[in-house]
């Protein structure tokens, strides 16, 4: 006959097997166990050349810039490198959280720079350049010495010096479908609390920080946006139910 009605989700004949070269071209991820990392090497000095030429304009000469993105370097100590916990995350001693304060795994740095940096020319670096500039970032953070050369074989050793390597927990219910919530609110319906005070609101001086809110609401409907710019507000009649009843 002309036609077969088949079992659902069979997809017969669709797609084709990927070639090794295709997989190589796209399978670029590097996992925490370094699966996926290509062979290569790069020194702190080589990394500085890459950094100054291709990274510093956005991230600052020492990875400290806040201009284009939050700082990459800063806020970690030798004690953190020892403990594997960035203490400032607990104490709040540093106002801003830098990349090195958070990143637990060196693979993450390598993988991300390799796939996404420089921001405006991602995937333009060679593997050796990625090794080198990763070494340079680690050096800026005091994790590896000035004469260090990073390669596929010593990554694991460097991992053991990442300042926040023990800073992550998966003890929470927010990943797996079967995970249990940590926060428990009860559904009280009446006389739930005695008194309520406003504990936070937008200070007057910031009232127009988001522009004129009147222009961010519809010109009809149950409400209008508040006039928050200095331009003259239209006269509002809020003291009666409707002009029509006047």
């Amino acid at each position: 006959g002309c036609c077969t009605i088949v079992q659902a989700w069979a997809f017969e004949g669709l797609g084709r097997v990927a070639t090794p070269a295709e997989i190589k071209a796209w399978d670029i991820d590097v996992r925490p166990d370094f699966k996926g990392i290509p062979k290569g090497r790069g020194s702190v000095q080589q990394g500085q050349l890459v950094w100054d030429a291709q990274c510093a304009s956005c991230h600052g000469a020492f990875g400290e810039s806040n201009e284009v993105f939050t700082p990459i370097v800063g806020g970690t100590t030798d004690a953190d490198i020892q403990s594997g916990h960035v203490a400032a995350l607990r104490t709040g001693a540093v106002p801003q959280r830098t990349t090195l304060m958070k990143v637990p795994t060196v693979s993450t740095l390598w993988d991300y720079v390799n796939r996404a940096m420089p921001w405006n020319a991602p995937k333009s670096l060679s593997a050796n350049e990625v090794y080198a500039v990763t070494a340079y970032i680690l050096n800026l953070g005091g994790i590896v010495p000035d004469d260090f050369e990073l390669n596929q074989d010593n990554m694991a050793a460097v991992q053991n010096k990442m300042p926040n390597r023990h800073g992550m927990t998966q003890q929470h219910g927010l990943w797996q479908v079967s995970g249990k919530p940590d926060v428990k609110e009860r559904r009280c319906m009446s006389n739930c609390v005695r008194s309520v005070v406003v504990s936070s609101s937008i200070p007057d001086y910031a009232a127009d920080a988001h522009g004129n809110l009147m222009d961010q609401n519809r010109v009809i409907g149950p409400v209008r946006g508040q006039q928050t710019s200095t331009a003259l507000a239209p006269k509002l009649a809020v003291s009666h139910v409707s002009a029509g009843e006047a």
Partner: protein
Amino acid sequence: VPTLAQAQAQAVGEGDPVILQLPEHSKGLGQSVAAHPYGQPSKYESNLQRRQSPGLTRVGAASVSFSPLQGLFGMITPSGLHFERHHQGWWDIDPTQHRLMINGLVSRPMVFTMDELMRMESVSRMHFIECGANSGMEWGNVAVPTVQYTHGMLSCSEFTGVPLIKVLEYCGVDLKKGRFILAEGADGSSMTRTIPMEMVESGEVLLAYGQNGEMLRPENGYPLRLVVPGVQGVSWVKYLRRIEVGDQPYGTKDESVHYVDLMPDGQHRQYTSIQECKSVITTPSGGQKLLNTGFYNITGLAWSGRGAIKAVDVSVDGGRNWKPARLEEPVLSKCLTRFSLPWVWSGQEAILQSRAVDSTGYVQPSYQTLRGVRGSKSVYHNNAIQSWQVLASGEVNNVQVKAS
């Protein structure tokens, strides 16, 4: 902008001039069909745009634009107003040149064209997408004035695509070893996120190309994105080029440096993904002004990454007393649900709140309860009850409250 007076029906003397003198459109000939082969909203609706929050980010291509929830109805977000989050800018990719590769723990690594993916049997499902950082500016204090900025990294669409598990099975996936997938985008950031196979096996994770009846918009990942219902938006990888099946999580940048939740003990929670039960009143809401006293319909949105909404309670006295709101049907799993409660405003101060309960029995927490467990530096996954203070002037402001 017309004044309020213009918007009130007037019955001075004979009656309202806009009734007595017929408008131009009652006395003339309008425009032709297909004047706009692809139509646009009214010019009077231009106040409703997606907007950036000033000062939130430093560059527009690694930034957020927020959906104007203060003016939306029902549950569907118009695709033109869908929130945006890009890490390395958005593209309008030639779909004839786009490919999806499946590799890793499969017996046959494969490549598919869009033609092939769109030939497969597909499903269409309505789901919300929320950024894990939605309401993130408000963890410590009130920071932004309107619901567009407090909750606007939230949208909801009908998505069409193929359940990923079916394609993985077709490629001979090893579900015993392969307990994780890595999803990877084709843009400059080549966004990568790990998703537990448990979620994929549920059949809910989709290789999606359709959104609200048409193709995905370029800003939302045209021609292919992952849909991961209930999970934060960053996992819904856009411009999807590759799925790898693996035996451990991938520790990518956006699951090791961002989208990690800082707890009071200095530890970060990694791989936090599920968007727990949450709700917000959209009208009346911060930055708005009530026109006058009298009847109002308090309305808003509720959602849960763990299932369907079971109930939404509304308080007009800052959480002392609550009343169950009416839920708009259909109430769907991992989808926005519109709620509403009629209210007469007497002209005195009020504090409006909504509190959602989902099908697992989880109750949306107050800021006090939430901070009690997670502190106030988490950045992500703020699902606390939102308070809007109505002043005697009719002005509605974003506030946080302390109850005792």
